[in-house]
């Protein structure tokens, strides 16, 4: 088939698909993921490897986060696409947040600042009784008229799922009419307690409907699956003759069509990108870098070496590693002395949380525990070399480790006992709970800041500022009250966690 003929193929007709059905399997089933565990890091690694990882449910829970949020976060930042949320208006609660991320990121990348393209079908009571596929059809046409997008994503909701809306038939008809790819995203909130399923759902839609077979190969381009951080990847890759292609936020549809052309796919967080990277490798032969992402000295060395091997750049990599390590050595030593003996705690998602743990240990902190938001027993590629928890705690398997899908009440109880000097937080609205204990809480904004060798120094500078004057935390501890009973604060922190299923 000629290139032109390939381009004119209808968008649904990609015969090579990881999933035959349109939706992605939830993480609990696909990756054996859990949201309840307490023990040590070493124990968790062992149990997961042995295939014996079992969920522990909580009787009392605080509100979590859902797949819809995660899916929309990625898709709403594709600059020439539109997202239609087929849901009542409340599911659009995160639209303003995405819009702010959008405008901010546009400013940083010198793009025109303009609103994110987001619609809701605003389902009401009548719709739940009589169905609302007509509304969806109307919304698709409205989106097309208003924005002339290159693609449309239709995100499902609890409501659309429960009332059994047939998104696919609406979408099929609209695609025929409009001639652009329209993808459903099966991110109904109730389907998974592991909100990372939302990323899988978004990436599944991109794989199904957007990515095309490669017209050419670009062996020196590395796809980096990430969020919205600054491009510090260039710092690591350009010196060895490679170029990062940061995806998915702030890309355009055409850039995503060409994901298959890259020389390899790497991760800023392997929990985020597992489904997409594995899909690109399976369907288009783009190899996935399976080593944990390049945070911390050991992981950066390992990652760079694997990247170099896969892309034929091994000759360049050793001198580069040596030079970079030397460049930061003196400053790193200063920071290690400064932070020696300071206790740190990490409350974040897996992979990136593990990366944070490694970085903090490199900087001399004494890691006293973690609460990680879920645990994947394996990643989509299935290779144990990708076990970021094992990599981060190989020297500290006895590290106290908990898995909880946020659950501030557990975190607060635990931190009151541990009294760390610093807590790294990676989910909105948790930092306040920590700060009210008088403990400095750092909400890590730019997720790339600690990347690589120089990132250790950048990160250390930021931490120094944060720890120098915790007046705000001390004030909050003095003047506010946490909403927990004395009874709860005297219970063991994980006493609401049930037995393994």
């Amino acid at each position, binding site marked *: 088939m000629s290139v032109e003929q390939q381009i004119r193929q209808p968008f649904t007709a990609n015969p090579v698909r990881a999933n035959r059905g349109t939706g992605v399997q939830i993480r609990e089933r696909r990756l054996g993921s859990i949201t309840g565990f307490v023990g040590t890091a070493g124990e968790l690694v062992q149990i997961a490897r042995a295939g014996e990882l079992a969920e522990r449910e909580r*009787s*009392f*829970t*605080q*509100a*979590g*986060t*859902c*797949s*819809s*949020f995660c899916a929309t976060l990625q898709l709403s930042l594709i600059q020439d696409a539109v997202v239609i949320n087929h849901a*009542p*208006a*409340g*599911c*659009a*609660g*995160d*639209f*303003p*947040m995405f*819009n*702010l991320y959008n405008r901010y990121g546009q400013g940083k990348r010198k793009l025109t600042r*303009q*609103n994110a393209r987001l*619609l*809701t079908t*605003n389902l*009401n*009571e009548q*719709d739940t009784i009589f169905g609302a596929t007509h*509304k969806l059809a109307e919304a698709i046409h*409205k*989106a097309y008229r*208003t924005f002339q997008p290159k693609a449309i994503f239709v995100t499902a909701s*609890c*409501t659309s799922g*429960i*009332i059994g809306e047939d998104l696919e038939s609406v979408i099929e008809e609209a695609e025929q009419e409009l001639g652009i790819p329209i993808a459903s995203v099966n991110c*109904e*909130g*109730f*389907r998974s307690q592991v*909100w990372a399923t939302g990323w899988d759902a978004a990436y599944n839609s991109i794989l199904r409907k957007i990515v095309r077979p490669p017209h050419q190969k670009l062996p020196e381009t590395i796809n980096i699956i990430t969020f919205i951080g600054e491009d510090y990847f260039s710092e690591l890759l350009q010196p060895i003759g490679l170029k990062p292609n940061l995806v998915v936020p702030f890309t355009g549809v055409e850039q995503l069509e060409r994901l298959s052309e890259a020389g390899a796919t790497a991760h800023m967080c392997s929990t985020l990108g597992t489904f997409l990277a594995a899909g690109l490798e399976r369907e288009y032969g783009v190899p996935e870098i399976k080593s944990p992402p390049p945070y911390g000295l050991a992981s950066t060395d390992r990652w760079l070496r694997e990247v170099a091997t896969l892309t034929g750049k091994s000759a360049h990599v050793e001198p580069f590693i040596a030079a970079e390590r030397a460049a930061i050595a003196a400053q790193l030593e200063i920071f290690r002395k400064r932070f020696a003996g300071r206790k740190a705690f990490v409350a974040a998602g897996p992979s990136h949380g593990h990366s944070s743990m490694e970085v903090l240990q490199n900087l001399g902190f004494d890691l006293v525990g973690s609460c990680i938001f879920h645990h994947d027993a394996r990643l989509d590629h299935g290779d144990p070399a990708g076990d970021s928890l094992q990599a981060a705690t190989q020297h500290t398997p006895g590290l106290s480790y908990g898995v909880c*899908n*946020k659950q*501030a*009440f557990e975190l607060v109880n635990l931190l009151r006992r541990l009294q760390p000097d610093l807590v790294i937080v990676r*989910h*909105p*609205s948790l930092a*306040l709970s920590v700060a009210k204990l008088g403990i400095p809480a750092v909400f890590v904004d730019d997720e790339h800041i600690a990347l690589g060798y120089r990132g250790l120094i950048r990160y250390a500078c930021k931490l120094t500022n944060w720890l120098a004057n915790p007046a705000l935390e001390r004030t909050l501890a003095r003047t506010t*009250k946490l*909403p*927990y*009973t*004395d*009874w*709860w604060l005297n219970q063991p922190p994980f006493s*609401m966690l049930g037995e393994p299923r």
Partner: protein
Amino acid sequence: MSTILQHPRHLCALGGQQSVVAIPRAIPILHAGPGCGFKLHTGLGSYNGFQGGCYSGGASLVGSNVGEKEIVFGGEQRLRDVIDGALKVMDGDLYVVLSGCATDLVGDDTENVVAQYRRQGAPIVYAATGGFRGSNLQGHETIVNSIVNQFLTPQEKIPGLVNVWSTVPYYDPFWAGNLTAIQNLLAGLGLRANLLFGPDSDGIDSWCRVPAAELNLVVSSWTGLSTAQLLNERFGTPWLHWPTLPIGAIETSRFLRAVAEAAQVDGQVTQIFLERQEKRYHYYFERAADFFLEFRWDLPSHYVTVTDAFYGSGISRLLSGELGLLPLRHFVSDQPPIEQYQAIQQQFAVLSPELNAPVTFTADGDQIASELRKHPKSSPLILGSAWERDIAAELDGCHLSVTSPMMDRLAANGSYFGYDGALRLIEDIYGMILTAVQ
């Protein structure tokens, strides 16, 4: 009427969760999917004036996080587990269980589960707030009425006590400052405001006091009317409805006279208080007059409101009634009940018929932008949500965010209510314009 919304300005009925967060020491318990609480906190709190989680909101929200199992087999037992836990773990005076889309759709009998706890003496109520039932404004009303119906008992009347039912907490980013302003104004008339939300409220004690009030003051466009009617039925309390946000001397004095009459405040007391306030206001107003007069050439002469009915009508009355600006278009985005439309249109009609501007009821960003594009050379001052920034730039106009979602300002206790509120609004509007042009 539920149309597709581009860049929505309100959220779903479960958004009423924020009204519970706004009651001191009240604990919301969501019986819903795992993402609802967070999304609504983000949209009505965080990215709407950066209003944080405070006591029981944000990451502290209690939720059953229902999954596939509860959808298929029902979630009542899950709910019981979560309520049991909440009563032990969360230190609160009032617990409010709110149902989400998922649990309402599959038919969980949340009401009965909650009633059982209430019969055992727990201070717990239930509100049916499945998202598809309506907007967060409606959710707010449902919750308020549920507390009234399930929790309140008759009390002996307290002279001078006035319940205040005003804008929807969190949805209106200036709700807390507004309540303080109302409290201070009523105090000037010798009345005692019973605030049900915010840091100046006594939480559950204020709610228990509701039946003791001599008057229900509904200072909002349409939310709160059903509550006032309910309270009249149950406790015989009369109510006064004031549907436009009083901003500036003319409107605030008019408002206070009406309140004074309804609450039977002595005429002399009222007069003295109003005169003092007006005098002070006019001192500053006069001070700003040099500016208005000398910059008139360059300042926008026309304005657009893209807000809820309450703010839109109030702002219009200040800008047209006191500052001499001309209205270009009005968009009412809070989806009032259709039977209120005519009254609301009247509230915007401040000037003569030729000068008044049409009022369009819509919450769809696309429709709003299309309508405004019909005035391409207008360079208007647009007062709306942060979504309006793009269209303001397109029309070469100015923009100030005053309503949800307000992603570009931090709201602490600022307020546009009353005499002082007008001075604040004037400062903010012209400060924004001055900064933009320099």
